C-alpha cells in the first residue's frame, strides 16, 4: 500500500475521531514577513533596473540588506514551518504506530477499502486469511462490494470459511472515505454446525464407538492367536464384555425412547406398590455398581402409604437417577437415598456427592437429547456418552404418574433429585 493512501486513511481516521480547526494565527507572522520580503524584493528589482539608467551606484549595500532580509525570511519560515509540521508529523507517526499495533494484535482480519473498492489496508490476520497457494488474493473480497452494512457473507477459501462483515467509514463531515471489512475464520463453527448433533448422527456415533472397540479387540485376538500374552487376552475380553454391555444399554434406551417418543402420555401398567420396598430392591441390585465407584449408600425410609404406580417404569426412572449419581461422582462419597410422605404426595430423594450441575445446564437437563458438560474438580470433562435420554425418560415416566421431578444442584456441591408421586395416579 502506498504512503499517500496510508496517510489518507490515517487522516480520515483522525478527522472522524478528533476534528480540529487549523490554527491560522500561527501562520500570520509568516504571511506578514512574506509580504514585506516580496515588497522589498520588488523595490530592489526596480532599483536594479532603473539605477544604471540614472547613473546611480552603491547598490551593493542594498543587495546586502535585501540578502539579509531574505535569509532572515527563509530561516524564519523554516523555523515556523518546522514548529508547525514537526509535531504534526510526530503525531501522525504515533497514530500510525498505534493503529498498526492495534490492527496487528486483532485476531480478526481487518481490511480497508477506498471508495473505488481498492484494498488500501490489510492487517496481518487479514493477509493470513486472504493468502492462498497463489499468494495474497484480496480480489476474492470483490463479491462483498455493495454488501449492506452489518450483513455477513461467507467466503470459501481453500478449505477455510471466512465470514466477512462490512461497515462504511464516514467522516464527521459526512464524507464517505471507504469501507472497513472485518474477516473472521469461521471454519470450525461452520463444520460444527454441519456435523451437528442431529439425532441420527449422535446415535450413529454412540453406537460406532463401542463397535470400534469390540471389533478392534476381536481382531487383536484373531491376529495375536497363541502369541497373545494372557494379560492382553484378559484386557481384550473385559473390554469386549464392557462395550457389549454399553451397546446393549444404548439399544434398550433407543427402543425405550421410541415408545416414549411423540406418543403423548406413556402407557402405564399400574398396581399398588410399596415405594420403600422398590427402593430397597433397587439398592440391593445396584450395590456392586455403587460400591465400584466408591459411593456409600444410606437409605432413610419414612412410613409411606402404598401408591398406585407402574413398578417397571418407576424402577427404570430410579435406575436412571442412580446411574447418573454413579457416573457423575468421580470421587465417591456418601450416596443418600431418602423417602418422604408430605400431604398427598410421596417422594424419593437421591443425593449424590458428585460434580453437580452448572447453572447453565440446569434448566436443560430434562430436555430430550441434552447432554451437559460436567467437569470434575480438576476441570476435566467427564464422559457423557449415552443417547441423552436418561433424565428425559425420568421426567416422562414421573409425569405420566401425575408426579413431578425436581433437582437441587450446584457445581462441586453434588445433586439431589427428587421424584414426587401422588398417592393415586390421576384418571385420564
Amino acid at each position, binding site marked *: 500500500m502506498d504512503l499517500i493512501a496510508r496517510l489518507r486513511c490515517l487522516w480520515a481516521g483522525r478527522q472522524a475521531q478528533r476534528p480540529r480547526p487549523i490554527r491560522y494565527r500561527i501562520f500570520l507572522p509568516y504571511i506578514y514577513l512574506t509580504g514585506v520580503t516580496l515588497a522589498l524584493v520588488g523595490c530592489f528589482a526596480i532599483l536594479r533596473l532603473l539605477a544604471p539608467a540614472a547613473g546611480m551606484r552603491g547598490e551593493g549595500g542594498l543587495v546586502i540588506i535585501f540578502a539579509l532580509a531574505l535569509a532572515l525570511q527563509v530561516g524564519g519560515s523554516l523555523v515556523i514551518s518546522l514548529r508547525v509540521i514537526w509535531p504534526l508529523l510526530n503525531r501522525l507517526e504515533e497514530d500510525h504506530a498505534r493503529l498498526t499495533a492495534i490492527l496487528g494484535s486483532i485476531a480478526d482480519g481487518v481490511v480497508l477499502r477506498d471508495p473505488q473498492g481498492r484494498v488500501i489496508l490489510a492487517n496481518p490476520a487479514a493477509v493470513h486469511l486472504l493468502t492462498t497457494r497463489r499468494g495474497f488474493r484480496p480480489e476474492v473480497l470483490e463479491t462483498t462490494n455493495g454488501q449492506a452494512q452489518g450483513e455477513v457473507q461467507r467466503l470459501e477459501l*481453500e*478449505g*477455510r470459511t471466512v465470514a466477512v462483515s462490512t461497515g462504511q467509514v464516514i467522516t464527521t463531515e459526512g464524507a464517505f472515505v471507504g469501507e472497513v471489512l472485518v474477516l473472521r475464520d469461521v*471454519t*470450525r463453527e461452520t*463444520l460444527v454446525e*454441519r*456435523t451437528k448433533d442431529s439425532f*441420527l*448422527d449422535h446415535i*450413529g*456415533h454412540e453406537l*460406532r*464407538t*463401542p*463397535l*470400534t*472397540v469390540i*471389533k*478392534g*479387540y476381536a*481382531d*487383536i485376538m484373531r*491376529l*495375536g492367536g497363541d*502369541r*497373545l500374552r494372557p494379560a*492382553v487376552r484378559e*484386557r*481384550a475380553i473385559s*473390554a469386549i464384555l*464392557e*462395550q457389549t454391555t454399553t451397546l446393549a444399554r444404548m439399544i434398550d434406551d433407543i427402543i425405550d425412547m421410541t415408545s416414549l417418543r411423540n406418543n403423548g402420555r406413556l402407557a402405564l401398567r399400574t398396581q399398588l406398590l410399596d415405594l420403600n420396598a422398590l427402593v430397597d430392591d433397587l439398592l440391593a441390585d445396584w450395590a456392586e455398581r455403587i460400591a465400584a465407584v466408591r459411593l456409600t449408600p444410606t437409605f432413610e425410609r419414612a412410613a409411606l402409604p402404598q401408591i398406585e404406580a407402574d413398578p417397571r417404569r418407576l424402577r427404570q426412572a430410579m435406575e436412571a437417577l442412580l446411574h447418573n449419581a454413579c457416573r457423575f461422582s468421580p470421587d465417591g462419597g456418601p450416596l443418600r437415598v431418602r423417602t418422604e410422605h408430605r400431604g398427598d404426595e410421596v417422594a424419593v430423594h437421591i443425593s449424590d456427592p458428585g460434580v453437580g450441575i452448572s447453572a447453565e445446564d440446569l434448566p436443560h437437563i430434562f430436555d430430550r437429547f441434552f447432554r451437559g458438560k460436567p467437569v470434575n474438580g480438576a476441570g476435566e*470433562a467427564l464422559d457423557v456418552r449415552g443417547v441423552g435420554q436418561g433424565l428425559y425418560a425420568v421426567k416422562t415416566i414421573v409425569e405420566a404418574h401425575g408426579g413431578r421431578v425436581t433437582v437441587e444442584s450446584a457445581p462441586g456441591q453434588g445433586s439431589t433429585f427428587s421424584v414426587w408421586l401422588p398417592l393415586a395416579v390421576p384418571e385420564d
Partner: protein
Amino acid sequence: MSQSSDERDGRMTWLIIEDDHAIRDVLGTMCELWGFDAVMLKDGFQASEYLQNETPVPQPDVALIDIRMPGPWGHEIGAKIRAHPRLHNIGIILMTAYELAGGDAEQYMSISGADVLLYKPLPPMDDLLELVQQIVERRRALAGR
C-alpha cells in the same frame, strides 16, 4: 536426534490422539502386539502441547487422530503437524464415528493435510497396518525427492 522407523528395522511409532479411552487402548494394544511404539494423547489440548516440542522422542511415523475431541479438533491438530519442523512429513490418518455431510470430509482433509480419513468402526487391524505402511512409505518417498 530421534530415530525414525527406518533405523529401527521397520518398527514404527504411532501417535494416537483419541478422546475415547477404550479406542485409545485398543490401538495401543495393537501397537504392542506388532512391537511398535505408541504415543497416546487423550485430546486436542494434550496434542497441542506435545507438538510444541520441536524434537519429540520417539519421533512418530504416523498420526491417527480422531476429528471430534475436546480442545482443538483433529483436523486442526493435523494442520499443526504439517507445520511442525520435524513432523511435517509424517502420515496423518483422520478418524471419525460421525457421518460427515457432503464436502465436509474434503474440507477436513484439506485443512489437516491428512493422507486418509477413516470412518469408525476402523477396518480390520491387518488392513489398517497395511494402509499405514503404504502411507508411511509414500511419505518417505516424497520426502526423499
